[in-house]
C-alpha cells in the first residue's frame, strides 16, 4: 500500500483449491485465473457510483476500470485432490477460489498493512485510493483511546 497516494499493488497471490478429481487441469487453471482477475477488479477497481441526482458517474470504461494485464499479478495456483465419495470419479466444483475470495483476501491484506497505523478496518469494495487514503488520514488523526469510566463497561 502506497501511503501517500493510496494505490495498492499485489506483490504475491496464491490460490489453493480442492476440486476433487480434476477432469481437465488446464481448464481448471484457466477458470481460476479468470476468476481471480475478476475478483481483483471487484476488490480494487470496479465501481458504478451515482451522484446525488441519480446520474451514473462511470458510464464508460474510462471511469469503470477493469483490471488489465498490468493489474493482475502472476497468480500461483496449487491443487489438492481429495476425492469426493459421492460423485463419479470423485469430482467436485472448482473456480470459487477465483472470483469469490479476492475481495476478502485483498481487503484483509490491506487492513493488515494499515494495522500499525491503528486504522479502522476497511470493509468496502473497491478499495479505491481515495478510500485507502481516507482510512490512513482518519487513523493519523484519531484521538488517543480514552480510559474506561469507573463503573462502566469498557
Amino acid at each position, binding site marked *: 500500500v502506497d501511503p501517500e*497516494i493510496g494505490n495498492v499493488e499485489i506483490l504475491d497471490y496464491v490460490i489453493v483449491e480442492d476440486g476433487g478429481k480434476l477432469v481437465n487441469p488446464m481448464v481448471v487453471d484457466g477458470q481460476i485465473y479468470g476468476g481471480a482477475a475478476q475478483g481483483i477488479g471487484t476488490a480494487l477497481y470496479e465501481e458504478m457510483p451515482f451522484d446525488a441526482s441519480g446520474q451514473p458517474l462511470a458510464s464508460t470504461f474510462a471511469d469503470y476500470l477493469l*483490471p*488489465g494485464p498490468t493489474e493482475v499479478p502472476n497468480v500461483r495456483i496449487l491443487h489438492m485432490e481429495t476425492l469426493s465419495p459421492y460423485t463419479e470419479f470423485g469430482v467436485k466444483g472448482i473456480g470459487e477460489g477465483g472470483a469469490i475470495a479476492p475481495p476478502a483476501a485483498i481487503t484483509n491484506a490491506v487492513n493488515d498493512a494499515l494495522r500499525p497505523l491503528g486504522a479502522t478496518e476497511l470493509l468496502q469494495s473497491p478499495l479505491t*485510493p481515495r478510500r485507502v487514503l481516507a482510512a490512513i488520514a482518519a487513523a493519523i488523526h484519531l484521538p488517543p483511546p480514552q480510559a474506561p469510566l469507573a463503573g462502566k463497561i469498557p
Partner: protein
Amino acid sequence: MKPPRFEYERPADLAAVIALTRREDIAVKILAGGQSLGPMLNMRLVQPDVLVDITGIPELKRVEENADAIIVGACVTHADIEDGRVPDVTGGALPDVARGIAYRAVRNRGTLGGSLSHADPSADWVASLAAIGASVLIRGPAGSRSLAVEDFVTGVFEVALDPGEILEAVRIPRLSRSARWGYYKICRKTGELAQAIGAVLHDPERSAFRAVIGATESTPIVFSDAASLFGGTLRAGLPAAFDAGAAARVLSAAGMTDPYDNQIHVVALKRAIDRARLA
C-alpha cells in the same frame, strides 16, 4: 460506434492544409496519428466535414539540430523519441517520458504535435514540455510564430491556434550536461491517462529551474521559477527542502480544493523532485 460520414484529404504540403483549415464553410479536423481523434470520431464527440491527413507532408517529420536546440516536426511520433530516432538533447529526459505514454501501439502512431494540439490536460507532453521550457512553432496564413508550450495550451482541449493555423514543429532546448530532470506520474492503471503529473528541471547553467504540476482539471500549473517552492533562490545544487505546503496552497488557489486530488498532485511533484535529486 462508427463515425458519421466525412470527406478525407491527404495534402502534399502545408499550404494546402492551411487553405483547407482556414475555410469557414466546412468543419475541418486535422488527422496525424489518430490516437486521440480516432476514438473521438468513433464516439461522435467530433463530427467534421473533412478530415485532413497531414502525415504525407515531409516537412512535418523533419528534425533539425543546432547548438541550442532541436526542432522536431509535428508528425514525429512518441516511438521516434522513445527509440532514439530523434537526437536527444535532454540527457534522456524526453525518451523516458515518451516510454511511459500509453501503450507501444499508441506510441507507434501518436505524434508530438498531435498530442500538444489536442491538449488533453493529462497528456505527458503537455506537462513535460512545459517543464523543459519547449516552445511550439505555428504556421498560418499570415506566416509563422512561436509560443511557449504553457502559453500554447490555454485550457482543456484548447490551444492558441487561429483559424488556418497549424502546429508545425516543437523547439526543445538543449539541456546542460549538469541539468537534473525528474518526472513522475500517478495512474490508477498502467497505460491510462495520468491522474497527477509532476515534472521538474534544474539547470542552473542556463538559469532554468522549472516545475510543473500536470493532469489538473485544467492547464498545467507551471512554476517558471521553481525556487519559490524551496524558499530560496536558484543555486548550483538542488535545494534540500521542498515546501509541500506552498505547492498545496498554489493548487488550492487554482481551484483544486478536493483534499485527495490536492494530495496526489503534491506527491507527484515531490516524487519528481526526488527523482531529479537522484539523477
